[in-house]
């Protein structure tokens, strides 16, 4: 492989990684902190894409669509938390799996009834449709570069928020002793709704960013959700830092696996990676619990 190709493929891996991170971040927070396995996270991703596509078609602007879709998905997420998921925190993981699996069915069908079975179209905004010369002689799609930058920005922001702010501390505290946090005077319910909404917003954002690259269709959230689960497990559940590292690792491994390995092996590459990591570090790369 030539030098150029290496650079481009690394960027491709990074871009995939960043997308995965946007998905995984919410998932790892909700999972690690509220102790909730939310299989329906992919549905929020799908909703983000559909809503953005609709708003883009209505307003003709990608950015206005973004401003409308992301808060809306956040709202839907919070509604979902308040109406159903909140009741599942104290339950077995399995009840959560069942309920959120049911939510997937519901949302997929809802989307199909609302938007029809055909895939939906989303165009890349005009200003980002070209390519950028990242290094002399190496063009790279501007839109994908935007994803890398925006995603990394969100990652840094989230890391600082969780690691450095008091709110972040409380969120982490709630991961292990929810009742106790309440007994110390924190409205943990509200906080959780907020955290869930944040995760939903990120998933919606990811779906929206993916819209112009991928097809906007029912069930589009499931494959990436499975990948996101792989990511958070490799990274260590509940760890934002771990999710980022693992997302990039998975992104790069998948990208290079696809071009360097025979097809049968490359389909399995990330699963082999995950099994390998867990073999040596059963708690993931950055276990959140000391």
């Amino acid at each position: 492989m030539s030098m150029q190709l290496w650079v481009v493929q690394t960027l491709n891996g990074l871009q995939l990684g960043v997308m995965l991170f946007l998905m995984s971040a919410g998932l790892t927070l909700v999972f690690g902190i509220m102790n909730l396995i939310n299989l329906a996270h992919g549905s929020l991703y799908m909703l983000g894409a559909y809503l953005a596509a609709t708003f883009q078609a209505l307003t003709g602007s990608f950015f206005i669509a973004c401003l409308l879709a992301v808060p809306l998905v956040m709202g839907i997420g919070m509604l979902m938390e308040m109406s159903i998921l909140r009741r599942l925190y104290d339950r077995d993981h399995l009840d959560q799996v069942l309920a959120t699996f049911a939510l997937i069915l519901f949302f997929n069908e809802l989307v199909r009834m609302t938007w029809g079975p055909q895939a939906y179209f989303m165009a890349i905004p005009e200003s980002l449709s070209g390519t950028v010369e990242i290094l002399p002689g190496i063009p790279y799609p501007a839109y994908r570069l935007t994803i890398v930058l925006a995603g990394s920005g969100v990652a840094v922001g989230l890391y600082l928020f969780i690691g450095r702010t008091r709110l972040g501390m409380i969120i982490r505290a709630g991961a292990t002793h929810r009742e106790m946090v309440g007994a110390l005077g924190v409205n943990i319910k509200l906080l959780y709704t907020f955290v869930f909404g944040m995760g939903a917003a990120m998933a919606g954002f990811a779906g929206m960013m993916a819209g112009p690259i991928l097809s906007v269709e029912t069930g589009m959230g499931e494959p990436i959700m499975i990948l996101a689960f792989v990511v958070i497990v490799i990274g260590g559940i509940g760890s934002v830092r771990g999710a980022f590292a693992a997302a990039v690792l998975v992104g790069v491994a998948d990208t290079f696996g696809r071009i360097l390995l025979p097809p049968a092996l490359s389909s399995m590459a990330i699963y082999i990676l995950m099994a390998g990591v867990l073999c040596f570090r059963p708690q993931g790369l950055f276990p959140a619990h000391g």
Partner: protein
Amino acid sequence: DEIKIGYMATMSGPAASLGIDILDGFKLGMAHKGGKLGGLPVELIMGDDQLKPGIGVQVANRFIEKEKVDFVTGIVFSNVMMAVAKPITDAGIFLISANAGPSPLAGARCLPDLFTVSWQNDQTHEAMGKYLQDEGVKRLYLMAPNYQAGKDGLAGVKRYFKGEIVAEVYTKINQPDYAAELAQLRAAKPDGVFVFYPGGMGINFVKQYAQSGLKEEIPLYTTAFTIAQMVLPAMGDAALGLLNSSFWGPDLDTPVNRKFVADFRKEYGRLPSLFAAQGYDAALLIDSAIAAVGGDLSDKEALRKALRKADFASVRGDFKFNRNHFPIQDFYIRKVIKNSEGVLTTKIIGTAFEDHADAYHSECDMQW
């Protein structure tokens, strides 16, 4: 009396639009025959295989054991077809495939009660292979998902394309992003790229191909499976100008087709895809056979004979069944254009094959 037809297709999930298009085509065909087939009123019984062979078998058994249908039609995907073909035909029910045409059923394991009104899987790919060979493309790059249909598709192209194959790349099933593969492709600098990516995979691939700027550098060739009418809106301008092969196109100039396309647009408010055309033909085929036996479904032998004649006016013009009950038909090369209303559609620009038979019929020992 009445005939019962079981319609089985993928009606939910991302691939649902195929099943729906076939069904709409089929219903239009019935409507054109006065809501009847062969003069008999029709009870259409629906079954969703959810793209899962196991569910398909279940639906098939409902058709056989509970509903006791006379015909089964529909069937979008090869894996479902492979699972249900034998149980359905074993039960003495005629199976009219309106889409799937897997090679084993065209060859050694052909079935006397299975009629495929669409095509054999490889045929459409072969058409593009032939075209590329005729065009004198030298170095070709091949891509497909790593599953049976993908491998068959590329094999079809290679059967007629004799130039250099730069690379044959298989990607993961339902892989959403092709950035890495596109970067490799660009570096290989081929003269042309052929891909087989049906459904959502195709939308993603075509969009990303255009976004990476490759569309201007290297021509992309595909088939009607990637460039089907229902995915064109989602691809947008990225699809414009792409060449693809098919046995049919909305602009195919036959009287039947003109009426079909116009009425379909009137009825459903959209352009029909080739899947709709296949559904339409499936209805007409059944109609012609029942009419030929005078509505007497008890004589299977006579009915089979009538089906074999394919004595109806197909949207594709002339067509006849090979001895394996797969069609012998023409194949065209189409180009994606915007019509006068600004809607993306295809236009036939040439003929790749005339009266093309599939590659497996000689392995089928059915005699008639």
